[in-house]
């Protein structure tokens, strides 16, 4: 979740409340993010030098601390998106997080989808070449993994169809631009 918070901060400096709403808008079918988790994560990002406090806003309401991505934070985000998600087991959610984050941040979406596709196909190939044990249960477990890889691959195809052509993709703003909106 750390890197996803970095992606949520990539568009503009935000306070915790904004980040929660941005997250819930990115993933309308997932469980809403808890405020407590957002604040804990932001504190950790700041401690690790991945985000920094740029402003304290009041806007007439309660005081709100606004965070922005640091250059180190952006490097970390790019490194995360440069790696495909693990191709099995708990990988499914990570795939969605990475793809959506790549789409929102505009960081090499096509490259990401292509690498992810290759990584999933490689895993599928490996599984197809190494038959599971002879038992029905072993075969069922194997089929479950293959079916999920296939579902992810189909979903990724959908993502490519919905992608803007490369020329239309917005580059990520630099740290300076981001911190002085």
């Amino acid at each position, binding site marked *: 979740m750390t890197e996803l918070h970095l992606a949520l901060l990539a568009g503009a400096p935000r306070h915790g409340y904004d980040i929660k709403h941005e997250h819930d808008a990115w993933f309308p079918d997932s469980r809403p993010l808890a405020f407590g988790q957002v604040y804990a994560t932001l504190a950790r990002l700041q401690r690790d030098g991945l985000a920094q406090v740029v402003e304290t806003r009041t806007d007439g309401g309660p005081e709100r601390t606004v965070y922005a991505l640091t250059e180190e934070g952006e490097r970390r985000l790019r490194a995360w998106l440069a790696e495909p998600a693990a191709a099995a087991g708990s990988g499914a959610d990570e795939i969605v997080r990475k793809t959506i984050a790549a789409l929102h941040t505009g960081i090499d979406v096509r490259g990401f989808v292509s690498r992810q596709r290759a990584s999933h*196909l*490689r895993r*599928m*190939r490996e599984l197809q070449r190494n038959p599971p044990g002879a038992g029905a249960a072993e075969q069922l477990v194997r089929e479950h993994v293959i079916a999920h890889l296939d579902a992810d*691959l189909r979903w990724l195809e959908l993502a490519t169809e919905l992608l803007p052509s490369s020329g239309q993709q917005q580059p990520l703003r630099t740290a300076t631009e981001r911190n002085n909106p």
Partner: protein
Amino acid sequence: MSTVELSGVSHAYGRTQALRDVSLTVAPGEVVAVTGPSGCGKSTLLLLAAGVLRAQSGRVVLTGTDLAGADEAARARIRRRSVGIVLQFGQLVPDLPVLDNVALPLLLEGHAPREARAAAAGWLDRVGLDVPPTTLPSELSGGQAQLAAAARALVTGPLLVLADEPTASLDTATGRQLLDLLVTSTTAAGGSVVLVSHDNAVAARADREVRLRAGSVVHEVALS
């Protein structure tokens, strides 16, 4: 020598540009998957590789012969000797019994009918098509026709198998068995396979994936 090599190939049907500047090299023993959405040019690429369609620009070299310099008869000869094609919709000869359909490539090469039919019966058995040998193509289900087409493609022991959605009409288990047979029987003899498919499980059989979109290659990755 590459089994087949397409360089900078383009093809249009009238005003529909089906392929644009596509290059693809298939090495001996290699399995390549060509994937991509409907209408992206996969079947066109396969027909060009087989020399069924003539490239309007670019070059196709099939088992060492530049197809640009080969007339229709010469191209048909190379196809018969070295290439096994499984077309997208089976495409058996309607008036010939299944056994003769499968034996046909051998008969055309001048093999004795008895021998050709015996070999054909062997391949029908291997693909798992269990129907009386006198059955006509019109009496086969879609999946059975696809199995017969695969047997016909393999009967000559080709250097190159070109298969267009070879498992589209088959259930998962039969599809896997057929793929296994297409790939292992061909590569074991040093031959190459090009698999055209929408199906990820088919793509995952390949050593390399070439993905087309709107007539161009958009991604090419090694899977092995």
